[in-house]
């Protein structure tokens, strides 16, 4: 705007300044409004494999958690710096002696069917529901928790027998959401119909599950955080074919791919596409370890030398490089190497076919006498190739391996029922191995409830004693030494052969904002996700 020359003392000058000031601030405001999240749009994701259930309290399958995590919420969650963040518990206090945890719950929260959320739901969830459904938590609670009581409609108190530092992490949204008492009390928890059409408190409401096609979630219009969620809905597409998934992502029909959604071979190409971002954020809480579970009940797998031979015969670097296309690094032992609990001096199982054969000979066992069933729960993709690779890799040792592929739900059931000889699996080691890894090895977790219990049937009183010792020893050098002894024993007995430590790149189109906000990443509720720009 050309400035009209005027004398310094003209009366129009101050007015002009004010106008320009107003114009300037209007522009700034407009700019900041554009940086605000846009409302609306539907986020398209992939559910691969098709989940066995939509209630991640009952079925802790990753696919289930992915979908269910947006519908059901827990008391708290963890941000990327591994600090707890409030969710349904708006605040909490821990008594100085560590024996009392008081949780103040959010006010004005309703379940998706309109019923109010109260402390009774929390008490029901942790006192009745989880001890029945999840033996791991049940065990913890029996050992450490005296009682859980509702001291008001919006307050819950946990009374502990002895201090238990990991209590908060076992209450995370991603693992143990609060379940609606009015829908679950008195029912058969595992077969409750609401496992397939979940009712929660989260930002998204279950709308429809068309088997083999999609799972549709809609916006929770009465979400207890005003102004959220931004999205109108989320659709999880069921696309069993990996190249179709990659193609769909390329075309923008799918906007974000979790690690494992795209075939590992497509990762490099997809990341290089314009407008696509990759991030490894969001998995800070979950250090993933992939391993081979061995059913130690059945000969020849009941012989530790045979098990060691199996690990020697697997070229784990080849697996990481060629089957998972570099998404990880070879495991260093039963505990993830990034945690301080791993013993850096642990004996390693470098790929050595000769040694493997020697061990078999030493054991004197005829490994080819019976057909060994290697279960695989995902058709197509890296895990199936891994199973094939294993079959070929074990052949020179004389094993007759049969790969049995099924869908996720069937796999989950079979492994839970110990109906397998070998299977690949992976867990997230959340910090202290005692919290998750222990259940794979402790003899009191020889249960038939899930593949993440001690399905191998490993029963070692020495190892059990070491686990107990580790739980009771405070942090410090002594504890590390106990862990080292434990790891060494597990490394020798090898009921579970650690394969590789997983990396989790998430791929998404740059128009998707606020995707990875917490340390539980894609299992989180996506309440603040929005789409900047037209969704395709």
């Amino acid at each position, binding site marked *: 705007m050309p400035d009209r020359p005027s004398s310094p003392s003209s009366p129009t000058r101050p007015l002009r300044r004010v106008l320009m000031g107003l114009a300037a601030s209007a522009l700034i405001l407009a700019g900041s409004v554009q940086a605000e999240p846009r409302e609306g749009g539907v986020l398209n994701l992939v559910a691969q494999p098709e989940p066995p259930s939509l209630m991640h309290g009952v079925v802790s399958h990753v696919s289930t958690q992915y979908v269910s995590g947006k519908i059901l919420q827990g008391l708290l969650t963890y941000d990327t710096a591994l600090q707890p963040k409030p969710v349904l518990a708006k605040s909490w206090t821990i008594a100085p002696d560590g024996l009392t945890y008081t949780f103040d719950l959010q006010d004005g929260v309703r379940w998706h069917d309109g019923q109010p959320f109260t402390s009774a739901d929390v008490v029901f969830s942790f006192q009745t529901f989880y001890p029945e459904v999840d033996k791991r938590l049940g065990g913890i609670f029996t050992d450490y928790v005296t009682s859980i009581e509702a001291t008001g409609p919006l307050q819950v108190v946990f009374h502990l027998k002895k201090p238990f530092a990991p209590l908060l992490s076992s209450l995370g949204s991603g693992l143990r959401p609060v379940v609606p008492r009015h829908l679950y009390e008195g029912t058969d928890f595992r077969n409750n119909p609401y496992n397939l059409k979940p009712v929660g408190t989260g930002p998204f409401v279950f709308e429809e599950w068309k088997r083999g096609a999609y799972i549709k979630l809609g916006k929770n219009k009465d979400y207890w955080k005003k102004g959220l969620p931004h999205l109108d809905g989320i659709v999880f597409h069921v696309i069993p074919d*990996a190249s179709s998934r990659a193609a769909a992502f390329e075309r923008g029909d799918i906007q974000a791919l979790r690690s494992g959604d795209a075939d590992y*071979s*497509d990762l490099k190409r997809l990341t290089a596409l314009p407008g696509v971002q990759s991030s490894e954020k969001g998995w800070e809480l979950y250090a993933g370890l992939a391993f081979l579970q061995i059913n130690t009940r059945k000969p020849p797998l009941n012989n530790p030398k045979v098990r060691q031979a199996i690990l020697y015969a697997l070229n784990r670097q*080849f697996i990481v490089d*060629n089957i998972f296309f570099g998404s990880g690094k070879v495991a260093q032992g039963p505990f993830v190497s990034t945690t301080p609990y791993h013993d850096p001096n642990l004996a390693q199982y470098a790929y050595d076919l000769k040694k493997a054969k020697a061990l078999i000979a030493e054991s004197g066992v005829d490994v080819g006498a019976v057909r060994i069933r290697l279960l695989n729960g995902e058709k197509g993709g890296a895990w199936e*190739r891994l199973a094939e690779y294993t079959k*070929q890799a074990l052949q020179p040792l004389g094993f007759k391996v049969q*790969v049995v*592929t099924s869908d996720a739900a069937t796999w989950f059931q079979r492994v839970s029922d110990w109906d397998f000889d070998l299977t690949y699996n992976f867990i997230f080691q959340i910090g202290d191995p005692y919290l998750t890894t222990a259940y794979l090895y402790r003899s009191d977790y020889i249960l038939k409830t899930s593949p993440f219990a001690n399905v191998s049937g490993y029963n070692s009183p020495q190892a059990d004693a070491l686990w107990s010792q580790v739980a009771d020893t405070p942090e410090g050098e002594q504890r590390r030494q106990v862990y080292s002894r434990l790891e060494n024993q597990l490394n020798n007995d090898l009921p579970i052969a650690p394969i590789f430590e997983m990396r989790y790149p998430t791929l998404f189109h740059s128009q998707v904002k606020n995707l990875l906000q917490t340390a539980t990443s894609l299992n989180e509720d996506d309440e603040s996700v929005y789409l900047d720009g037209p969704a395709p």
Partner: protein
Amino acid sequence: MNEVSVIRRFLAQPSAVIGAGFLLLLSLLALAAPWLTNSAPWEMNTTPLLAPFQDPAHWLGSDMLGRDLGSGLLYGARVSLAVAAVSSLATLLVGAMVGAVAGYFGGWLDGVLMRIAEFFQIIPQLVLAVILVAVLEPSLGSIILAITLVTWPAVARLVRGEFLSLRQREFVQAAQVLGQSPLAIITRQILPNALAPLLVTLTFVAATAILTEAALAFLGLGDPDAMSWGYMINASRGLLREAWWMSLLPGLAILLCVLAVNRVGEGLRVAFEPARRQGANP
């Protein structure tokens, strides 16, 4: 029917000759597979995703687990050709038996048998094969059984047709008068005349067998110990773009094989034709 003239007429058709030559060559290569390649098809012995024409030891490249494609193709040829041959033979036996019985004895037996044949021709064949193999557990045996079950009607109909027309001919009636047993009449008088269209039909059976086996293997119902072209195509699905040779080569192999078999069949049909016109044309 003059055998020499048939052969000559066959050889006069370039496409049929090329087809036959291709099949012969493929069979020889397949038989010689263990000596031709130094790697078993399942052995993961090289850099994965090796493109063809890069490494002289693995001329056709490798798949994503480092398995040599060339040896995969050769051993896959073994499976395809073996399944085609055995299925054709089995179909011939079953179909000829049923068709002979129906055509010779006629009456209600003929009616029933032909209804059954029609039934198996109309219902979706691959779907039936899938169910049969799934129920019996996948193996080369169950695959061959499934293929035979869906292809025998064509042969049976043909043989029956031949029987119906030839039954009335003088030389058959003469044989009956002379007291030849029905079995002898069937094998010595009627079948040789039916040979021509039978051979042609069998080539189509063989082509169907190759395609069906590939489809079953593609769906994951192949014999788990046998490297099959269909299996290779299925394995290549995730890497369609990165490793085009993984899907292109086995697909081409199937295509060329079926094409060759069809051309041979067509060649046979043309070669037999004048003789058919002279002889026993219904």
